[in-house]
């Protein structure tokens, strides 16, 4: 009767000991069998439960010995149902993507950020305004043209985690601060990684946004391009809250990835905060996923971290970029 309720999809019967144990276990098992719904029946006692176990198997039902076994099977059924409900969407290529011509000339190995910028802007990803400088003085001049405050980054293919080494400075308010920060970076780099080539500096406008997101993609030898998405910046290693999907992806699939994150409420506006521009995130991810698909096995990995995302309707801008090709 309980199982007949239309709201009930499946059942979980936990048979601790009871009077007329075997007979009642058999009746419950028969009712479960005839209900037309999956029912996990658990007999929790030890040897005293054996007659009940026998009766349940006689009725043609599986007998579970522990709570967790029953739960695990119900969970697998729920997983199956959720996967079956999930619509299949075939990603379709957005118009205007350049394709192979965009990366024909690139050499294997870690790419200069300027190359990654060219590649991503060709695929229609909005990038933070950047000027390249070869010296501290040039950096200060570039900063004046952009307007303060600015961010300053050392440009080097040899340094992967720049912020760990103090190679990224944010919110520099005047020319003197830029010159000083640049000189410091050169000094630090010489100490930390003596062989690192410092090719110059990138001076960037300071982008304000609501959140930092990571969009990364790598070429898996088994399954091709695999994309990750989650809250980025320095939070990524700590939270490890990441959605993973095979590329290329439709925008709908990206929205599903975001909705599946533990931190999804932060994207949709938790506790009175404004919702993020998830449509802009989906747009960037879709474009990057096609870039990876076009690169095929030439791609080792490519990462935007952070993608700075504004509130709904204000867009998303890629700030730090890196890519390695083979």
């Amino acid at each position: 009767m309980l199982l007949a309720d239309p709201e009930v999809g499946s059942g979980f019967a936990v048979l601790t000991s009871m009077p007329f144990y075997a007979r009642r276990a058999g009746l419950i098992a028969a009712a479960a069998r005839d209900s037309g719904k999956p029912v996990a029946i658990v007999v929790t006692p030890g040897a005293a439960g054996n007659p009940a176990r026998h009766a349940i198997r006689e009725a043609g039902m599986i007998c579970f010995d522990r709570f967790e076994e029953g739960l695990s099977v119900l969970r697998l059924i729920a997983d199956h149902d959720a996967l079956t409900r999930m619509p299949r969407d075939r990603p379709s290529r957005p118009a205007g993507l350049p394709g192979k011509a965009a990366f024909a000339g690139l050499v294997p190995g870690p790419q200069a950020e300027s190359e990654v910028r060219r590649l991503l802007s060709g695929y229609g990803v909005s990038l933070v305004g950047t000027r390249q400088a070869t010296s501290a003085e040039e950096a200060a001049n570039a900063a004046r043209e952009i307007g303060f405050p600015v961010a300053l980054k050392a440009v080097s293919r040899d340094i992967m985690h720049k912020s760990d080494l103090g190679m990224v400075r944010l919110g520099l308010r005047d020319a003197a601060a830029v010159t000083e920060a640049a000189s410091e970076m050169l000094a630090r780099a010489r100490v930390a990684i003596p062989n690192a080539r410092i090719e110059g500096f990138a001076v960037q406008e300071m982008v304000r946004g609501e959140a930092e997101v990571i969009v990364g993609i790598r070429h898996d030898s088994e399954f091709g391009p695999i994309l990750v998405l989650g809250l980025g910046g320095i939070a990524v290693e700590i939270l490890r809250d990441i959605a993973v999907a095979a590329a290329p992806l439709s925008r709908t699939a990206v929205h599903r990835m975001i909705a599946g994150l533990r931190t999804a409420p932060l994207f949709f506006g938790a506790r009175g905060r404004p919702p993020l521009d998830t449509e802009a995130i989906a747009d960037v991810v879709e474009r990057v996923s096609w870039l990876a698909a076009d690169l095929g096995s030439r791609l080792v990995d490519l990462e935007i971290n952070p993608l700075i995302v504004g509130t709904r309707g204000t867009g998303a801008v890629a700030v730090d970029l890196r890519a390695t090709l083979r």
Partner: protein
Amino acid sequence: MKHVLHTAQAAAGKAAPRIDIGRILHPRSVAVLGASDSIDKFGGRIMHFLIRHGFAGDIYPINPRRKEIAGRPAFERIAAVPAPPDVAILAVPTGHLVQSVEEAAEAGVGCAVIIATGFAEAGEDGEQRQASLVRIASESGMRIVGPNCMGLIVPHHRMALCSSVVLNTDTLGDGSISLVSQSGALMVSIFDRAKTDGIGLRYGISLGNQSDLEICDFLEYLADEPETAAICLYIEGLMNGARFRAAAARCRASGKPLLAVKTGRTEAGVAAVRSHTASLAGSFEAFAAVCREEGVVLATDPDDMVRAAHFLVQHPGPRPPGIAVISGSGGGTGIASDRLTELGMPLAALSPTTSAALEKMLLAPQACNPVDLGGRR
């Protein structure tokens, strides 16, 4: 079991397969190399179980030192059997194996099932031995299952081509769930556990090192076979990700639940981690992402996987997500409710009709989901 990739499939000059998967699973004749009368030996148990479970095709015991085995005429060499057997199972020591496989190929065997260990899972020498097997298969068109496997169990064909003690039973059961496992020992364990649960399997297929025939060869066959209603896989390593993905899509298209347990979840993503992406999404995460997209249900416990497949075959759905909990004790309903909620599975909100009916039997506080049978009127 170490998983090793090989490139023989791509080698040029590959002979056409002598027999297809359907015939390998339903052979008309089987030769047992290393057959014996003693059930203390692999070759003895294989003979014993083939006969005990009533294999209806021809059985050719091969043993140069015997005239007769298990009441059947024995042959000195595989080449001496009257007609090339569809399948030969090799219960011979690793040292003689490559030669035996060569002889089987020359004798026109359709598929060799190789139990022996000491191949790609066992260092460089083993890898070379396996490469020899792969070369024989590819040049002759004889297929190979294994090495390092436990053989095949096909209840509806009354074929127990396997030496495991779990076959020491009167019946093999039968059903519509097909199991493909890289591990042989796990395959027979799952097979027996399922049988104890009252779940018959349609096939128990173990593949070992996948030197020639690999998971997808069988998965593709099972996806198209009408009698297979659900498929369970135990995977250590895939030979071809794109092929797996396409086969999974085929299962989905034909409405067959496909479930898998895969090892390697805890392996470090990529050895030299250059980027967050590589450290966050290693090879298992890539596999899991593809499974999600193709509707493959990932399990962690192989017996739970088969039990879930059993329920899904009986009750394909769709169904509402709500779960009804019933127990003879408040402790039972309490733990069940907590755990279901923690796992994100909702308790069903009962309709007024059901609640009213329950109230006739149970004290008011118990007349709702979860139902505590202890609170009877």
